[in-house]
C-alpha cells in the first residue's frame, strides 16, 4: 500500500503491489530496467518467453513502425530456461513478482518448462504463450485450435502448482470460447491480447518490411480491439483476466480494469518510455483516489453500462 489507498491486487493467486506488469518480450529479463527505476514500484513483469534450449530469432529486419504501432517478428529469441533460472532470476530484487512465459512447439515442451520453472521459489506464476503470431510452429497453432489449447493447458496444469495464466491470441473468431476452454482445462487466469497478425510492404523496394513477411502488430493501434476482447472474456469466465494491448497511459490501463481486468501488462510503451510502467502504476492510483475508490482492486469491472 502506498499513499492513501490500497493499490494491491490479486491476479490468479499472485499478490501484486499494484496492477501493472511489464509484458513478455518488452521487459527483457527485468534487469534491463534497473537503470531507470526500482522494479519494486510496479507489480512485476512477465519475462521474455522461454524455450527449453536457447533460441535465435529471425534475420533483420525484425521490426518496423506502423501507424500508431509497430510490427515485429522476433521469433522468441531467448536465452533458454537454464540460463534464465541460473543467471537472470537471481538478479531480480526480492519483492518483484516474476511471471515466467513458456513457449514450445509441443505441449510436452511447455509442460517440461513449467515443471523446471516451478522449482524456483522466485517464479510467482507461469504464463503459457499460446499466441506468438509469427512463429511457424508452436504458439499460435495452440491458440487458434480449441482442442489443442485444452490439451496444452491440461498438460501444463499437471506439471505445475503455480498460478497458471494462458496468454491468448486475438487472431481467432471467438475469443470468449478460447478463454472458456482454458478455464475448463484448469487455467487460473487469462492474459490477453498478444500482437495482431499483420504485414506491411515497402512500395519502393516492393518487399515486405519484415524478413519474416508476417509479423505482429502492437501498440495503441490495437488497443480498442484488445479492450473489446478483454470485455468479452471477462463476461465469459470467472477466472481473472490480465489486460494487454496498446496501453500507453494510466487512462488506457484504467479502461482495461473497468472492462473487467484484474491487472494489466504494459508492452510496446516500455520501448518509447522506459518509465511507462511506473508512471502508469502511479497514474492508476491517482485515478482511483480522484474517483473515490478505496482500493485500486475496486476498479475491476466498474464499467457503467446502463443506458444514459
Amino acid at each position, binding site marked *: 500500500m502506498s499513499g492513501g489507498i490500497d493499490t494491491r491486487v490479486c491476479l490468479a493467486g499472485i499478490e501484486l503491489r499494484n496492477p501493472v506488469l511489464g509484458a513478455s518480450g518488452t521487459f527483457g529479463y527485468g534487469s534491463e530496467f534497473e537503470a531507470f527505476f526500482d522494479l519494486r514500484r510496479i507489480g512485476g513483469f512477465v519475462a521474455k518467453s522461454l524455450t527449453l534450449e536457447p533460441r535465435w530469432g529471425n534475420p533483420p529486419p525484425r521490426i518496423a513502425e506502423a501507424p500508431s504501432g509497430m510490427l515485429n517478428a522476433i521469433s522468441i529469441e531467448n536465452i533458454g530456461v537454464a540460463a534464465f533460472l541460473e543467471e537472470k532470476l537471481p538478479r531480480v530484487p526480492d519483492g518483484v513478482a516474476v511471471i515466467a512465459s513458456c513457449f514450445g512447439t509441443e505441449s510436452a515442451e511447455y509442460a517440461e518448462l513449467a515443471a523446471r520453472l516451478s522449482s524456483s521459489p522466485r517464479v510467482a506464476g507461469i504464463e503459457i504463450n499460446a499466441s506468438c503470431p509469427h512463429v511457424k510452429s508452436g504458439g499460435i497453432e495452440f491458440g487458434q485450435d480449441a482442442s489443442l489449447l485444452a490439451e496444452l493447458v491440461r498438460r501444463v496444469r499437471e506439471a505445475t502448482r503455480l498460478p497458471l495464466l494462458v496468454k491468448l491470441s486475438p487472431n481467432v473468431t471467438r475469443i470468449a470460447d478460447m478463454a472458456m476452454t482454458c478455464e475448463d482445462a484448469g487455467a487460473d487466469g487469462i492474459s490477453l491480447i498478444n500482437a495482431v497478425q499483420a504485414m506491411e510492404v515497402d512500395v519502393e523496394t516492393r518487399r515486405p518490411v519484415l524478413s519474416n513477411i508476417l509479423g505482429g502488430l502492437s501498440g495503441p493501434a490495437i488497443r480498442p480491439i484488445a479492450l473489446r476482447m478483454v470485455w468479452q472474456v471477462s463476461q465469459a469466465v470467472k477466472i481473472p483476466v490480465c489486460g494487454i494491448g496498446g496501453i500507453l497511459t494510466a487512462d488506457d490501463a484504467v479502461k482495461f480494469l473497468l472492462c473487467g481486468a484484474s491487472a494489466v501488462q504494459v508492452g510496446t510503451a516500455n520501448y518509447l*518510455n522506459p518509465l511507462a510502467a511506473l508512471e502508469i502504476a502511479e497514474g492508476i492510483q491517482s485515478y482511483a483516489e480522484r474517483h473515490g475508490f478505496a482500493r485500486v482492486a475496486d476498479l475491476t469491472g466498474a464499467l457503467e453500462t446502463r443506458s444514459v
Partner: protein
Amino acid sequence: MTSTGRDSRLPSRIDAQVLENRSEGGNNHRLVLSVPDWPGAEPGQFIMLSAGARAAVERSDPLLPRPMAVYRGHAPAAEPAAGRVEVLYRVSGRGTQLISEALPGQRLRVVGPLGRGFPEVESDASAVLVGGGTGVASLYELAARAVARARTTVVLGARTAADLMGRDDFAGLDIDLQITTEDGSSGLRGLVTDALAPLLRRVSRPSSTTVYACGPTPMMRACAELAESHAVRCLVSLENNMACGFGVCLGCAVPARRGGFALVCQSGPVFDSNDVRWQDLP
C-alpha cells in the same frame, strides 16, 4: 561479438528542452538540447529521441523514438541543470520531420546515453575516419579526441555538397580533411571509398592503423573490405531499426560472424567489421 568500446554510464530517461533547432542546408538540421543530469557519453554512443515534441497527451503516431548519435555533448553536465547535447540529423521521414518542427522551449524525450562507443584511439597510431550521409554525426567526437593522440584523417562523403553534415566543425579540427560528393559539387567526385583506397595504399604500418566507418551499410561494407585487403583493422558503427535502444525489444539484431545475432543497441553500435556477417545484412 566482442565489444569494442566502453559503456561507463547508465542511461536514463530525461525530458530535454530544445535550445536551438535549425536547418543547416539541404535536409540537414542541428538540434541543441538542454539535458538535465546528463551523465555525458563516449564517442559513438547514441540517444533515443522522441519523434516530435512532447505534448500533454502521449503521442502515439509516429510511435517509436529515433536513434540519433550524440554529435557533441560528451562531457557530463557541470551542474545538474546544465547538460548540453547536440544532434545533427537529416529529415528523411515523418519522425525526423516532426523533430525538425520542435521549437526552442519545447520538450523532447531523451533516453540515453546508449550503446557502446568507439574504443579510445591508441596514441601514436593512425586513425582514418570515414563518414557517409548521417553517419558523419557519429564521428565528430571521435575525431576531436583522436587529433591529440594519433595522425587523424577524416573522409566525409555525401551525395551533393548541400547534404554534407558538420563540415565546418570538422574543418575546425587539426585533421587532414577530405571531402567526396557523388556529383562533384565539393571535393573529390565519387564515393568515400574512392578517397579511402589511395589513403590505405599509402599506409606504412597497417597494424597501427584503424579505419572507423559510419554510414549506409553498403558504404561500411565496402570500407571493411578495403581495410581488410590492406590488413588494416576496421571498426564500423551500424545503423538498424530500433524500438527501444536498451536491449529489450531484440529488434536491432544483426547477424554475427561467430553465429547467431548481436544487438546493435547493446553490443554496438560499434563493431569490429570482422564480427559482422555482412552478406546476411538486408
